[in-house]
């Protein structure tokens, strides 16, 4: 019975996938198609130059004592694309992310954002120049309301100057425009009804949404998401993925760190794989997951598992894989 079932499962699975792929093809946005076409001409090799890079990093090293956490020779991130940064735990993804966003200082290396050197730029200044980030452990400002969270993120408010703050007419107009904009974004993220609630009262998934919505208030050109799907229930993952794609379709560049292969396979235009601090592979999502270096780095014992297999979403399967990994 069980043998028969496995056999039966194979065929419909392929069929389903084909149907899903076809459906995805038709629903793919213009922006996604354009990016896919541009990137199809790029040779999937580590450190390869992109046609229109928004972010370029060269020779970046970060050492903690004797341990080299990050050692990236060269990386270019294509403008307007969704680039996923993946790798096993301890690969240095988040450290690299913190370096790029100004939250950590490298031992050596240079990088440029929109053609400007940003190696020693502070995190705040970087955010003002259009590169905004979110955090793996969501940072909702708990004792501020959802709307206040949003308004806080708006740039260039004269009321944020101590002396400007004393004179309300100086900032009430800006505040009103920002509120309208914030309500628009909240509407899109389905947080409209929660606008007057304390951010601390939101659920984990809603906080992820709020953090993304808040980041949009800064008018970013590039948005860096640190594990946007971590700790979010599967029902919300789909809507989060939709939001990330919408960011690209609105012309923003997205770079995100993620463990969820499902998410990576379905929305990214380009995948960068890190292991032990280095970039071991990069390329379009479907081909990079079959790359031998990636399989070695990522899977260890499970060479035969498709990284993008939806079965990995099943907690039972995951638990079994983890148990096997531990026994090893």
């Amino acid at each position, binding site marked *: 019975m069980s043998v028969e079932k496995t056999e039966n499962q194979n065929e419909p699975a392929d069929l389903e996938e084909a149907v899903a792929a076809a459906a995805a093809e038709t629903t793919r946005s213009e922006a996604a198609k354009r990016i896919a076409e541009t990137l199809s001409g790029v040779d999937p090799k580590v450190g390869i130059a992109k046609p229109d890079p928004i972010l370029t990093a060269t020779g970046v090293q970060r050492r903690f004592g004797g341990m080299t956490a990050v050692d990236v020779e060269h990386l270019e991130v294509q403008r307007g694309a969704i680039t996923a940064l993946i790798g096993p735990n301890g690969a240095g993804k988040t450290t690299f992310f913190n370096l790029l*966003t100004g*939250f950590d200082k490298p031992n050596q290396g240079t990088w440029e954002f929109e053609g400007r050197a940003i190696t020693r730029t*502070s*995190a*705040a*200044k*970087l*955010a*003002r120049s259009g590169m*905004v*980030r*979110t*955090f793996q452990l969501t*940072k*909702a*400002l*708990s*004792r*501020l309301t959802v709307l*206040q*969270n949003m*308004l*806080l*993120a708006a*740039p260039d*408010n004269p*009321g*944020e*100057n*101590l002396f*400007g*703050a*004393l004179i*309300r007419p100086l*900032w009430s107009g800006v*505040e009103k425009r920002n509120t309208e904009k914030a309500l628009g974004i909240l509407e899109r993220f389905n947080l409209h009804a929660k606008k007057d609630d*304390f951010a*601390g*009262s939101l659920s984990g998934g809603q906080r992820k949404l709020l953090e993304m919505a*808040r*980041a949009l*208030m*800064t008018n970013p050109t590039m948005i860096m998401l640190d594990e946007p799907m971590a700790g979010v229930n599967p029902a919300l993952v789909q809507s989060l993925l939709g939001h990330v794609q919408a960011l690209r379709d609105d012309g923003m560049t997205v770079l995100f760190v993620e463990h969820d292969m499902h998410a990576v396979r379905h929305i990214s235009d380009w995948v960068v794989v890190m292991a032990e601090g280095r970039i071991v592979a990069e390329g379009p999502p479907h081909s990079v997951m079959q790359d031998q270096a990636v399989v070695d780095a990522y899977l260890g014992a499970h060479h035969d598992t498709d990284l993008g297999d939806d079965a990995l979403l099943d907690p039972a399967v995951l638990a079994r894989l983890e148990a096997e990994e531990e026994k090893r």
Partner: protein
Amino acid sequence: MDELSRILIQALGQLIAPATAAYALAAIGLNLHFGYTGLLNIGQAGFMLMGAYGFAIATIEGAPFWLAFLIAAAAGALLGLILGIPTLKLRGDYLAIVTISAAEIIRFAGRSTLWAEYTGGASGLAGTAYKTTFQALSPLPDGRTAIGPFEYIHNGSDSWWTRIFAWGLVLVAVLLVWLITRSPWGRVLKGIREDEDAVRALGKNVFSYKMQALILGGMAGSLAGMLFVLPISVSPDNMGRTLTFFVWTVMLLGGAATLWGPVLGSMLFFFVYMLVRTGMRSGLADVMPTQNVEYLAGLLVGVALMCIVIFRPQGILGNKKELAFDVR
């Protein structure tokens, strides 16, 4: 019965006493630090001592009242700047350590013989040496007035004029705090209190905001120090750690991050404190000597502070809802 009304009137007098106003103003400054920005300043007495010395020494050296007033404020700002530059980039705990030791350093510097020519050493500065310019400012004619149970002379140390001036200054401070905390500037402070990395990621210069808050609160503290010594004398040992802990109790009792909390907290605290002390002094006269009553009252203040923090951390005016989430 006579005894009881005497005790009650004495306690009621504390509601409008100049010292109560001084504590209220110091707590307003501390509230700006801790309540709104989350800065742990455990040396508010140091700021107060700077203001007291600044005002008294400037006046003795011949400065007119308002110049001495500005010097007192500037002394607090300077101390904030000096303490803030090395510590505000570090984690919050460092500011706590630095402020508590700075307060002690200032006290010891004041009571040492090194600058005794200016500071008067351990015996401090006599009130008569620096009060004349302040008392000359009084628009009131000489005489006495009784309002209800309160009867004071018009001019002099323990006078209506000292009370009017002290509480006037407190009201101005409350107005200023109201203006700046309802503004976008105040929102950034609250954001920093919740999570400074999140605010940094949104493009705000967190260091600059923390410095502004530290300096403003420090100026409130140093002006409170001036109010504190106007009716008495400058004596460094009066303004040590105990003073700091009283200011903390006052602020937490009223409610951190509330507008009127420090004022209400100060009035209530000194009303009850006086009631307990005079009550015990007459009630326990046969049981223990007066000096022990003081120690017992101090002990009760400590217990009260602990009880507030454990059972009502939001204080009297605080919003219970804000504490529903685990912030740190």
